[in-house]
């Protein structure tokens, strides 16, 4: 199983029936593929839709029904559409139960940086700052390391997305939570030892006595 699939499958396990969920671009988008059919989750697209469905069949796309990247999507029965003030009212107001976003860095206190690399990549934050500040639960879905460098760092060197700490980080190597405000190793990926995780994690990790393997 590749890294992205491991992450997406594990994040999908965090969703509960009735949850309103916002998935970011990239790995987070894949999460929808692993939600069991009997789990009634509402997916929000922040451009103004609750009830996003899969990519439409060939020839069935409509120019007025797109995701936040402008790509054609479909809508499930019971979907609703609304303007951007309502969309971010839902997000900022705590009505989104879970948001899943990609990350550039997460630090030992759970702070996320995911919107700019000064001097290099300045695309704008889009909805990320509102999502991380306002959603009930924030889950970061990302590779554990990039180009051999840990993305779990003692302290973010990149500009923060929000001062509100995230709730969970799911990587291809581990699940990390922040009980008592400190990065804590909650699970390891199949076939990955605690030592391997520690070796590629720059931030200090609290390691409980019992660290089970991810069930995906």
């Amino acid at each position, binding site marked *: 199983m590749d890294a992205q699939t491991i992450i997406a499958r594990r994040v999908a396990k965090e969703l509960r029936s009735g949850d309103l969920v916002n998935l970011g671009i990239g790995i987070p988008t894949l999460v929808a593929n692993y939600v069991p059919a009997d789990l009634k989750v509402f997916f929000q697209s922040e451009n103004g839709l609750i009830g996003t469905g899969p990519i439409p069949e060939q020839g069935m796309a409509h120019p007025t029904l797109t995701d936040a990247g402008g790509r054609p999507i479909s809508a499930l029965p019971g979907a609703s559409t609304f*303007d951007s003030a309502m969309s*971010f009212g839902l997000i*900022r107001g705590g009505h989104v139960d879970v948001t899943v976003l990609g990350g550039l860095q997460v630090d030992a206190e759970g702070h996320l940086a995911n919107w700019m690399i000064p001097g290099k990549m*300045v695309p*704008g934050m889009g909805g990320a*700052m*509102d999502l991380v500040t*306002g959603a009930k639960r924030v889950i970061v879905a990302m590779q554990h390391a990039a180009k051999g460098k840990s993305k779990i760092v003692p302290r973010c060197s990149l500009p923060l997305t*929000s001062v509100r700490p995230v709730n969970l980080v799911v990587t291809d190597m581990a699940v990390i939570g922040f009980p008592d405000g400190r990065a804590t190793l909650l699970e390891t990926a199949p076939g990955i030892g605690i030592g391997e995780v520690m070796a590629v994690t720059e931030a200090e990790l609290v390691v409980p006595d019992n660290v089970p393997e991810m069930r995906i």
Partner: protein
Amino acid sequence: MKAVSVEEAVAMIPAGASVMVGGFMGVGTPERLLDEVTRQRKSGLSLICNDAATPGKGVGKLFDAALVARLTATHIGLNPKAQQQMLANQIDVDLVPQGTFVERIRAGGCGLGGVLTPTGVGTLVAEGKRQIEVDGRPFLLETALRAQFALVHAFLADYLGNLSYALTSRNFNPIMAMAADTVIVTAEHIVPVGVIAPDHVVTPAPLVDYLITNG
């Protein structure tokens, strides 16, 4: 509301004007108005739009023609030309969180001086802004945003100017239709009064100044 041709409508916009444009990645954008803005070469624009779309699409056309001097947006990462013009300092760019962006415009349209949002507290976005505590929680004061013109795209417009929108092409359009001195609208379909039921009108007719006629 006055029905006018697209040429007449765009002729009213001076170079250097502040212009809000509806749409999200080019979806729900008044393409006919943008084509005409480009044809009439209205330069030095202060553009207020969620994103820079992509080259050739939506407000992307304004960057293709280098007509934008200032941009207030939430994300421009999918338009390399806009990125280039920003990094070359040809455009003065103000990047704003999307929820803050829409609330500032809503405040401008609804007569509020601003709103208090938790978004951006303790980040780069807070720089130069007032931080205000309510019940011990810190918020940023984000002030109202208005423009001289709003270019809005609707799905249906009736003969009076009542508007409704389709699916995700609604996005910023109805909010911007309240926040500009002059509101100019294109619609997919112009229909008789009564076709849009009262409960389904999203932008009431009195908000619309000009409706672009067919053809």
